[in-house]
Every structure is written in structure tokens, then in C-alpha cells.
């Protein structure tokens, strides 16, 4: 399967590990990621705050490039923020002919034109679980992550607001949980799975940002997660690089490594930690990873109603029903 | 486009859904373009393509056919028959040089006064942009004209 690939600024450097591991797993899974030539920044969450039309134009240039370079009608973005901006621009241009016209007038200044809908933007997680599928992934697992307690952390923009079409529940996503289970990991309940990592608040109000990060770390710790798995460079940065600051700020001592889901896939596929960029994280992942293969009995807080004799039945969830 | 031009739309409304939707739009005082002139039929399936052509020839700039949503037709599936005819008629009108916007089929349930009002507004806007049809004058008119054909005029196009 051939896809256009939009790494986004983060994956060039600060999230290079994400890029490396993505490539490392893409190969075996038959995902051919072809980077679009000369792409530019998506504007993150900043550009829309300053100036509307240029913000759309900035993103639209990438869409236009993807469209013209004709690698594939699908464009994969591993970064949730990029994913949002690309899908949002495409969607809004489609919904508002006026906006489409303006953006295209701007693009014309650079000799480009983008027809809304001509490129379908997808998140890396989406294509791995939906285009490749759990079975194929399972087939590649040579070193199951047995015993590794992982908190699947989705963050916001991959599931909300769903401009690119909803591929998982915006409030309680589960696809990464399934994926990690396929890898053999023990996926812990993680109620805050889709809560915000603080985004750019680290730059604006550290108090606010640190509190958001703390909540997530606490929740992961409560469920005794060895590792937090992420799908977004921003989430990784905030939870990982700022973990020390948070500890300092709240007098806590969290030491939870934050890895990209692709890194965990790579490990399960038997790739070497090095080629997966493991070691670039601030909170050392090695102690946690040393557990792999060693089944540690869980004593994490159970979250189901005690099945005592008097106990009242629990309402069943969709998945249990089917 | 001459702004003084106001399109005239002949609307065929089915008795059970769309006509009641129009009634509801009125009772709830939804103001919409006064350009649609309503004709009540029992079901959108009663609307003959003949009626549409007749309206267009007699000077309508557009024709709106409104019925119940598929699955909600008072006569089970009359609206599906209307839809089938509309799809074929549309293709024939294309050949006769009539823009697609001039003949439209919409679904409006009895509770959807706003849907009907919006449809009329939308269509009125589209027809404003398209300009008048005025079939007799612009298409048939000038009976027995003595036009001369200048070979230059034609050869230029050749």
C-alpha cells in the first residue's frame, strides 16, 4: 500500500524516534510511505490564532503538493496536530466555496491549486489498524510485549473533532488498546486516554500545563503503567521532556517513560531498540522494557464491580454484547 | 445580471408532506423567497414530466417538485416513482439546453417547514444567477424571422 507521507516538523528532529520507528514498522507491514517533496510546517496550533487565511494557505500548500506529486490520493500524517490542520483545511475548503476560492487565489501566487477532497489525509494509527489490520500486525509479532503494562494515550486531535472522518470514539477511543494487546502488552485502563497533554500551554502558563501533565501521569501511575504509548510528538514532548519539571513543581516522583506506539510495535516485531530511536526519551525506558518477557502479576486497582452474591449486574457495553 | 429580474418557480407540492411543510413554514412565519408558486398534487408521483415542460414553456424560470422523504411516502413509494422520472427527465432536459438547477426535486417531511423554505431560497438564488428562461420569447420567439447568414460569421467559427 503506497501513501504520501507528511512527517511534519517535529518528526524531523525532536520526534525523530517516531519517524524512525514508523519507517521500521511500515516496511514489514507493506506500508510504502513516500515523503512529499518540500512540504512546509502546518502552522501547529499557532497560525490560526494570528491570521486566518494565511493559516489555511500554509496548510493548503502541502495538500496541493501532495495532490500534484500524485504519490497517492491518501496522505499519512503521524503527528496529530498536522493531521488535524490538514484534515480541517481540506474539510473547510470543501464546505465553504468562498474559502476554497480565496485559498486557491493565494496558492495561485505560488502557481498552485488545490481541489478540496482530492487528497484524503489519514493518521498513521488509522491506516495501521484499518488498512493493515490487527491480524497482519499479529502475524509480525515475534517478541510479544508480555507483561509490559502500557497505558494507551491518544490525546486530543487524533480523535477530535474528526474533520477527516471519525475512526474511533472521540471520548473513549480503543483502537490503540486493541493494537497493543495484539502486541502482547497488558493494556491498563486509562480513563484520561483522550485528555489534553497541555499542548502549547507549556509555553504560555507552566502552572496550567504542568497540572494537565500531572493528571495524566498520576492516572497512568494509579493504574501502574510501565509505559505510556503515544501517537503524537506534542504529547510525547510534554509528558516526557517536562516530566522532571512536573515532579519538581509538585514534589512528585513519577518516572514513566513515554514511547511512540510505533516504537512498541517495532520491539514486538523484533527490531533493535536503536533503530527504533529508543534512548532519545528523557525518562529512560530501559528499566520498563527490561520487564518484557517477564510476566509481572498485576496488582493494579481492578475497576469492575465486585462480583459478590448480592452484587447487581453491570450494564453490558457494546463490545461485550456483540 | 439584471437585479430587477425575479425568477418565477412553479412548485409541485405533495399533499401529505411537502404541502404541509409549506403550511408549517407559513404557520411558523418562516419568511422565504416569495418566488415559488405552489400547485398541490396528492403525491409527487402525480407530477407528470408534461407538467414540468408545460410550466417551463409557459414562462416559469424553474420547477420545484417536492415530496416526502423516501420511506415516508403516504402512498408507500410514490416519491420513488417521482425520483425515477426526475432522473430520466433531467437527462432529457440537459439535451434540450435546460440547466439542472431549473428543475429540482427535494424531500421535505410535514415537519420540515424550514427544509422547504431553504430549498425555495436556494433555488431562487441559483435562478437569479442563471437569469430568466422565458421560453416563448427567448427560444421560440421571432417566428418566421428573415435572418441572413453571413458566410464570414460562420467561417470565423470554422
Amino acid at each position, binding site marked *: 500500500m503506497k501513501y504520501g507521507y507528511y512527517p511534519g516538523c517535529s518528526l524531523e528532529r525532536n520526534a525523530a524516534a517516531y519517524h524512525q520507528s514508523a519507517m521500521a514498522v511500515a516496511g514489514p507491514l507493506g506500508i510504502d510511505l513516500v515523503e512529499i517533496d518540500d512540504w512546509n510546517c502546518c502552522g501547529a496550533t499557532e497560525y490560526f490564532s494570528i491570521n486566518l487565511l494565511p493559516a489555511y494557505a500554509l496548510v493548503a500548500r502541502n495538500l496541493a503538493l501532495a495532490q500534484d506529486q500524485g504519490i497517492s490520493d491518501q496522505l499519512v500524517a503521524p503527528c496529530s496536530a498536522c493531521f488535524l490542520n490538514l484534515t480541517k483545511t481540506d474539510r473547510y475548503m470543501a464546505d465553504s466555496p468562498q474559502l476554497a476560492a480565496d485559498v486557491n487565489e493565494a496558492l495561485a501566487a505560488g502557481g498552485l491549486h488545490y481541489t478540496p477532497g482530492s487528497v484524503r489525509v489519514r493518521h498513521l494509527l488509522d491506516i495501521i489498524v484499518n488498512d493493515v489490520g490487527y491480524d497482519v500486525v499479529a502475524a509480525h509479532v515475534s517478541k510479544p510485549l508480555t507483561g509490559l503494562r502500557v497505558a494507551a494515550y491518544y490525546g486530543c486531535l487524533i480523535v477530535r473533532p474528526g474533520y477527516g472522518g471519525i475512526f474511533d470514539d472521540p471520548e473513549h477511543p480503543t483502537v490503540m488498546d486493541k493494537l497493543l494487546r495484539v502486541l502482547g502488552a497488558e493494556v491498563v485502563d486509562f480513563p484520561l486516554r483522550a485528555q489534553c497533554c497541555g499542548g502549547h500551554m507549556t509555553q504560555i502558563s507552566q502552572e496550567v500545563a504542568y497540572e494537565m501533565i500531572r493528571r495524566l501521569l498520576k492516572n497512568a501511575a494509579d493504574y501502574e503503567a510501565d509505559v505510556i504509548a503515544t501517537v503524537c510528538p506534542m504529547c510525547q514532548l510534554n509528558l516526557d521532556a517536562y516530566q522532571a519539571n512536573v515532579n519538581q513543581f509538585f514534589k512528585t516522583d513519577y518516572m514513566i517513560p513515554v514511547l511512540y506506539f510505533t516504537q512498541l510495535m517495532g520491539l514486538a516485531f523484533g527490531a533493535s531498540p536503536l533503530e527504533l530511536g529508543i534512548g532519545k526519551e528523557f525518562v529512560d525506558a530501559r528499566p520498563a522494557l527490561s520487564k518484557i518477557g517477564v510476566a509481572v502479576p498485576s496488582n493494579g486497582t481492578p475497576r469492575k464491580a465486585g462480583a459478590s452474591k448480592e452484587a447487581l449486574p453491570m450494564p453490558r457495553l457494546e463490545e461485550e454484547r456483540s | 445580471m439584471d437585479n430587477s429580474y425575479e425568477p418565477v418557480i412553479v412548485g409541485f407540492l405533495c399533499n401529505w408532506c411537502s404541502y404541509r411543510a409549506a403550511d408549517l413554514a407559513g404557520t411558523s412565519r418562516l419568511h422565504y423567497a416569495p418566488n415559488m408558486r405552489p400547485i398541490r398534487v396528492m403525491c409527487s408521483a402525480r407530477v407528470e414530466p408534461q407538467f414540468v415542460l408545460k410550466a417551463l414553456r409557459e414562462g416559469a424560470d424553474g420547477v420545484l417538485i417536492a415530496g416526502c422523504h423516501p420511506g415516508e411516502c403516504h402512498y408507500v413509494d410514490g416519491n420513488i416513482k417521482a425520483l425515477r422520472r426526475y432522473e430520466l427527465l433531467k437527462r432529457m432536459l440537459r*439535451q434540450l439546453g435546460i440547466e439542472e438547477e431549473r428543475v429540482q426535486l427535494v424531500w421535505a417531511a410535514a415537519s420540515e417547514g424550514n427544509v422547504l423554505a431553504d430549498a425555495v431560497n436556494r433555488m431562487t438564488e441559483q435562478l437569479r444567477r442563471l437569469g430568466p428562461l422565458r421560453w416563448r420569447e427567448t427560444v421560440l420567439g421571432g417566428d418566421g424571422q428573415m435572418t441572413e447568414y453571413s458566410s464570414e460569421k460562420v467561417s470565423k467559427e470554422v
Partner: protein
Amino acid sequence: MAAKEKPKFAMYWAASCGGCEISTLNIGDKILAVGEAFDVAFWPCVADFKVKDVEGYPDGYIDLCLFNGAIRNSENEEMAHLLRKKSKILVAFGSCASEGCIPGLSNLTTAEATLRAVYLDNPSTDNPKKTLPQPFTKVPEGTIQIPVFYERVKSLDQVVAVDYVMPGCPPEAHQIATVMDAVITGVPLPPPGRSIIGAGSVAVCEECPRQKNVKRIKRFYRPYEITPDPEICLLEQGIVCMGIATRAGCGALCPRVNMRCEGCYGPLDGVEDQGANMVAAIASVIEEGSGPLAGIDEAELQRRIGKVMDTLVDPAGTFYRFNMAHSLLMRARFTGGEVEKGAA
């Protein structure tokens, strides 16, 4: 004692192929009876008359005038007015005169495009100077005038009042014979005013021997695409047979030989537009869209139905093969540069 004056007969040929004339001669020896019964006052195709002769006649001099051919140019129209003036009974004879027929199909394009096709674009035409017929041409001797080519083809009744219409392309010889008999033997004709003579009052299906069942059409076929079952209604097999919307009188000639009815006898009483009625009729019996509808995806349904309709190539040309000039819209509309689109 003067011999009783024979009634006067005229037959004129405007924009048409001449088939009507041949069909008239096809009535066989009855033609002699016609000769017996009438004095021919004007019949360019069989005897040498000049327009001057006709202009010389007193008004209403001609008792029966069969006018075939459509009104394509100014000459056709002038003759129509002249013959109307000079005739007691004016019959729009054949499909061209009564509804425009094949010439009428040019109403799906512009006069200009028609001329261009004939004088410029036609591969067998050698016209380096790109000369086109001009109504008025100056020559040393003065100005030469030829008929003006009209923008659209009209039926006879669109330029003069018509007493009777005799449909068909051409009218079947036996039909002509019966009408002639009637006229000669003085059987009273129906009240004049575009009344139909020499044809049936029900659709072709009445005369068609094929087995007719409840209709559920999956898709349409052009005649060359399938070999139809010779026993079963062609329409049921997806062939766009116009028989259901066409006046009988021909004896269902085409369907009898596995060919779809093309509709030359025109629409039935009470039908204003043959094509529109075909649309209504056959679109209604498409299979697509039957079945449970609750919670159906409306756009998807419309798309599926549309796909079936796409298999019906050139609806206008098919439904209006003979009736275009006499249909409700009468011709296609051109807002510029759409000639190709229009000319199906």
C-alpha cells in the same frame, strides 16, 4: 346540360422526403378512382403546375389538399398560407406536416449548425470559399432571392389552421386508401379542427401481437446490443419501444419484425407531449428503488437510479424522433456554444 364539376384535389410537398407521395401512389389502382373522382388542381410531383396557377384560383377552389412536409423555410410557409387560402379542406398529411418528423430533429440544434453541417463540415462537401446560401444575392442583373432558412422547423398547424391531421411516416397506404374512399363516397368526416383521420385511437400495443407482462426494467439496451425475444414485449426486454405512447394505425409494423416502434404516428388524444409521456411511463417501471425503504440513503438511491437511466442513450433524440417540432418545448435552447451538447 353541363357535366357536374368534379371536386378539386391538391397535394403539396414541403420539407419532407417524398415518402408520403410514394405511399399515396402505393394505394395501387385506387389511385385511378382518385383520378376518377377528382380534378387534380395542383400536384407538383405528378403534374406540371405553377404557383401562379394556384394564385389564380378563387379562394376555397381546392376541395381537398393533402399537404405533406414540414415548414423549414419561407417558401414552405408561403405555400402553406396560399394553399390554406385556396383549400376547403387542408390536411396535414404525414408526420412532417403534422409534427415536424425527422426534419424537426434539427430543432435539437441551431439553424446555423445545420447549415454548417451541410455546407461546410460535411466531408463530401467541397466549399473552399465557405459559401452559404444567402436569402438575397446581388448579381449584375439585380438581386436574386431564395427562400429564407428558418431558425426552427414548424409543423403545418403552427403556421396555418389545419382541418385534419393524417399521421404516419409515411401514412400507411391502406389508411390513405380508406380516407380517400371516405372522401369519394362522401362518408362524413369528423368535425374539422386538427382532427385525426386515417389512424387508430389507441396505442400501438393494441395492434402488437407480442406477449405483454407486468414491466420491471433493469436497464435499457440499444437495438444492436441484444437479440430480443421475438414473442415478448420489447420494452420489457429493455428496448425503448415507443409503442406504448404512439398512436396505432400502422399495424405495429416495426415490433412485428423485432424492431422497436419509433413513434411515427405521434401521440394519442389528450397527450400534449409524446416524449414527456414516454419518460413518465418507462421511468416508472425501473426495478431500481423497489424494496424496503426505511432509513434508506437518499443520495445513494438517487445515484443508483441515475445509473440505470444512463443506459438510455440520447433520450431526447429517442423520444422526440418524430415529435420534436410539435412537443411542448418545440426545440432545444442555446445559450451559446452548446450546439454540440444540444445536438444529441
